């Protein structure tokens, strides 16, 4: 084979072959002979012929197997890229723009060329030559193409970036520059950043249609961002209006005048034009030199300059926006008010100047909005407002029931409800400032409504007419601000009012408490005075009488008189002691001299004391004592006299309210375990009187609660305090006939001769678990049941 090839090359011929079969045969024949190099060049169709026409394709693939060095130049474009990529696998492929002619040089010995080729088809006409000169010429042509061509990979990158080949062009032709700008504006696909040098420049580029192209681009779905920095003035206000109306996604920032305009489109092309004549009417008249570039570096640089300016302008704009804005239109104020609440996402602070302001804002739905903010969006809502009855009711409704109805409808679980209530408690807080008690409304309470959202925005609304129910009518000027110092000063005003409101509440509560205490104290003094004065009257009167007729008194009268005097003097004694005890209790200076004592002894003493009372009544009241029989005597650590006072008091009350004939007063003790498993004794005193009236019940242990005009009305109050000072409890009940009562009617077999069901008073004492010295044991032993018939 090789010798044959050598032979063929030695005969120097140049021939032209026609017909697909012939040309293909010839090509394959030539290709088969190649030993080391094949240099080929072809137009953009060539790759499809080489790789798409089967016989040639196989030949090319064979090159690779045979280790042939293939260099290939073509014009790579979107339609042949897939063939090119295949070619790249078997050859070193380069791209050259607009290459024409198709030829190949094999081993620097043979030359083939095709005048015309068609995609994926055999070559219709082939020139073959092995003439050395021709080959040398063609070799030279190939090499010069080769050096100008760019590697396929670079070409592919360019194509994939969809970039045109990079260039950097200085344009001195102003008309051409205008055209470049128009083309740029037309071509915007993703983004456009325009820096315009002065206000009039926007008018000039608008005249070229540039603004309209931008608007059109902005209206496309695929658009990214279009940003313009331009000094804004009356000159271009109409155009800006056109832009904002037709393409609100084009952002325009107010800029400073600059010596040039800059236009960057799709991150690929940048155009910069000097401004020579700022006031010129047309673009081409206004500019000086301009630069147009697709170079990556240039575009990046321009873009970074634009971004820098943009950020600086944006900051400026934000700062300017942060300045306080005065709003006069009350509808706009209301809208802003509502929007601020709706858009807040952390916290809303609201100060309302008057009760009417609250009602007005409630009427336009603001209170509801605030409630929703707290409940649905979990915002913290705090309100400072003066209140009245209507507002308190409204607040209560918000705090308690609002939102609950919905839950009930949904049949939500109790836990969910509780969670909502918890959230409400946490998120929604109202504090009251009472202007009616403030010394001066002007000083004490702000006369404006203050709304602060997220500590970032504030809205302060003056009221011009507080009498109207209509928000819009009441609103005067409003100032909106998002400037930090302003907003924060309103926040601190709010906090001061908030704390003041709390302080006020504390003071008010304390004041109320003092007022109640004061009233009770006065009442006590009045009643005490009445009680103390009353017994003095008969003493004073009787002593006067006795003095005037001291020589003329019979024995019987004297006896009656002495009894009366004694009775009233004793009453005074009792009263003064009781009042002294009350005073001690109330000044918390009641002292107990506690010792270990046998409860039994104390009860027996008290029974003995109250016998006198019964005797005095000259009645026939039966007294029964039933001590606990479960063990030895009950030992308590107590003040003997005070304990006696309690028991005597209960017995004496029982006697007082029990009918004189056939009434029964019984006392019993019973050991029990407390909830904490401690030992305690329950002492109960039961009578067979009319029982406690429902009207008396809640006031039983209050001072002067008694309806008895003989008692001091202080006994139960003092008893309660003594029992509690011993760590016990005291209470009263009306006896119930059935056995389910707390302690069923004392004696199972006690007949209720009196007919009334009677009352029973109980008190408990902790039992001391220590033993008494034997000598301390006195009085009847535990088994004794003392029954006194009197």
């Amino acid at each position, binding site marked *: 084979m090789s010798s044959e090839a050598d032979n063929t090359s030695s005969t120097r011929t140049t021939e032209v072959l026609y017909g697909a079969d012939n040309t293909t045969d010839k090509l394959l024949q030539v290709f088969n002979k190649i030993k080391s190099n094949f240099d080929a060049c072809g137009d953009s169709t060539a790759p499809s012929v080489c790789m798409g026409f089967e016989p040639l394709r196989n030949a090319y693939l064979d090159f690779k197997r045979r280790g042939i060095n293939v260099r290939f130049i073509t014009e790579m474009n979107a339609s042949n890229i897939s063939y090119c990529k295949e070619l790249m696998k078997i050859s070193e492929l380069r791209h050259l723009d607009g290459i024409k002619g198709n030829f190949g040089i094999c081993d620097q010995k043979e030359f083939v060329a095709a005048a015309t080729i068609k995609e994926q088809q055999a070559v219709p006409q082939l020139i073959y030559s092995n003439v050395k000169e021709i080959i040398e010429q063609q070799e030279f042509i190939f090499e010069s193409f080769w050096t100008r061509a760019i590697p396929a990979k670079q070409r592919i990158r360019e194509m994939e970036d969809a970039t045109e080949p990079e260039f950097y062009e200085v344009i001195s032709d102003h008309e051409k520059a205008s055209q470049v700008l128009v083309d740029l504006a037309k071509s915007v696909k993703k983004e456009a950043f325009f820096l315009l040098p002065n206000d009039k420049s926007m008018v000039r580029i608008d005249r070229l249609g540039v603004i309209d192209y931008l608007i059109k681009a902005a209206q496309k779905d695929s658009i990214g961002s279009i940003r313009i920095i331009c000094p804004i003035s009356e000159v271009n206000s109409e155009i800006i209006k056109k832009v904002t109306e037709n393409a609100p996604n084009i952002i325009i920032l107010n800029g400073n005048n600059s010596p040039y305009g800059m236009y960057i489109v799709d991150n690929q092309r940048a155009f910069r034009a000097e401004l020579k004549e700022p006031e010129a009417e047309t673009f081409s008249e206004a500019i000086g030199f301009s630069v147009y570039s697709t170079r990556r570096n240039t575009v990046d640089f321009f873009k970074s300059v634009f971004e820098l300016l943009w950020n600086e302008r944006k900051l400026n704009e934000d700062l300017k926006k942060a300045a306080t804005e005065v709003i006069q239109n009350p509808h706009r104020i209301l809208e802003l008010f509502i929007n601020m609440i709706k858009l807040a996402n952390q916290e809303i602070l609201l100060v309302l100047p008057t009760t009417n302001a609250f009602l007005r804002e409630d009427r336009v739905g603001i209170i509801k909005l605030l409630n929703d903010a707290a409940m649905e969006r979990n915002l913290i809502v705090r309100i400072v407002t003066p209140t009245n009855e209507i507002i308190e009711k409204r607040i209560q409704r918000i705090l308690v029931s609002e939102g609950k109805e919905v839950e009930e409808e949904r049949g939500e679980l109790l836990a969910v409800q509780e969670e909502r209530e918890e959230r409400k408690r946490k998120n929604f807080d109202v504090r009251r400032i009472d202007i009616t008690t403030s010394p001066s409304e002007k000083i004490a309470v702000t006369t404006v409504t203050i709304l602060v959202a997220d500590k970032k925005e504030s809205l302060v609304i003056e009221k011009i007419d507080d009498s109207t129910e209509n928000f819009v009518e009441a609103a005067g000027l409003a100032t909106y601000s998002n400037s930090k110092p302003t907003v924060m000063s309103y926040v601190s005003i709010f906090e001061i009012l908030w704390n003041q409101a709390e302080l006020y509440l504390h003071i008010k509560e304390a004041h109320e408490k003092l007022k109640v205490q004061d009233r009770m104290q*006065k009442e006590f003094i009045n009643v005490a005075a*009445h009680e103390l*004065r*009353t017994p*003095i009257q008969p003493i004073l*009167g*009787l002593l*006067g009488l006795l003095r005037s007729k001291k020589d003329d008194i019979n024995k019987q009268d004297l006896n009656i008189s002495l009894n009366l005097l004694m*009775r009233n003097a004793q009453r005074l004694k009792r009263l003064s002691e009781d009042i002294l005890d009350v005073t001690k209790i109330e000044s918390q200076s009641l002292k107990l001299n506690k010792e270990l004592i046998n409860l039994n002894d104390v009860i027996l003493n008290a029974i003995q004391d109250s016998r006198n009372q019964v005797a005095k009544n000259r009645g026939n009241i039966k007294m029964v004592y039933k001590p606990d029989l479960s063990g030895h005597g009950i030992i308590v650590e107590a003040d003997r006299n005070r304990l006696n006072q309690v028991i005597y008091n209960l017995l004496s009350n029982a006697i007082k309210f029990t009918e004189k004939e056939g009434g029964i007063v019984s006392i019993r003790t019973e050991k029990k375990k407390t909830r904490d498993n401690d030992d305690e004794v329950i002492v109960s005193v039961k009578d067979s009187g009319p029982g406690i009236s429902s009207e008396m019940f809640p006031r039983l242990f209050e001072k002067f609660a008694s309806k008895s005009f003989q008692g001091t009305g202080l006994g139960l109050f003092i008893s309660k305090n003594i029992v509690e000072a011993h760590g016990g409890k005291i209470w009263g009940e009306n006896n119930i006939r059935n056995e389910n009562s707390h302690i069923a009617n004392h004696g199972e077999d006690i007949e209720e001769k009196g007919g009334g069901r009677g009352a029973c008073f109980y008190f408990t004492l902790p039992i001391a678990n220590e033993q008494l010295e034997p000598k301390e044991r006195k009085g009847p032993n535990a088994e004794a049941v003392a029954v006194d018939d009197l």
Partner: protein
Amino acid sequence: MRNKKKRVLIVDDEPDVTLVLKQVLDENGFDADSYDDPRLALNNFKANMYDLLLLDIKMPDINGLDLYQEMRKIDDKVKVCFLTASEMFYEKFRKEESYSKFDKELFIAKPIENEELLDHLNKVINNSK
């Protein structure tokens, strides 16, 4: 007989008070009746029986003022003195519109000594004649 004895009705819920007051008045030229149950006093009350009512104010069931109003319906000429140990009531009456017609002199503070009481009653009885 110089003058017919002045008839006085004493009502006070404290039996010892009525007992002593009746004695004091009886021994000093008055003709006194006494009740410690105001209801009973009202039930037994008739026109032209008494020149003067000496009433306690703080009583169970019906207070002295109401009792007086009721008795005035029966006898529109009878005079009254209120004998009270209560400061609170005393002040309150004079403040309230319906009782503003009562002269300050008609209120007597309990306790009072016999001479003073007698002077006071005489003054009230003789005053408006």
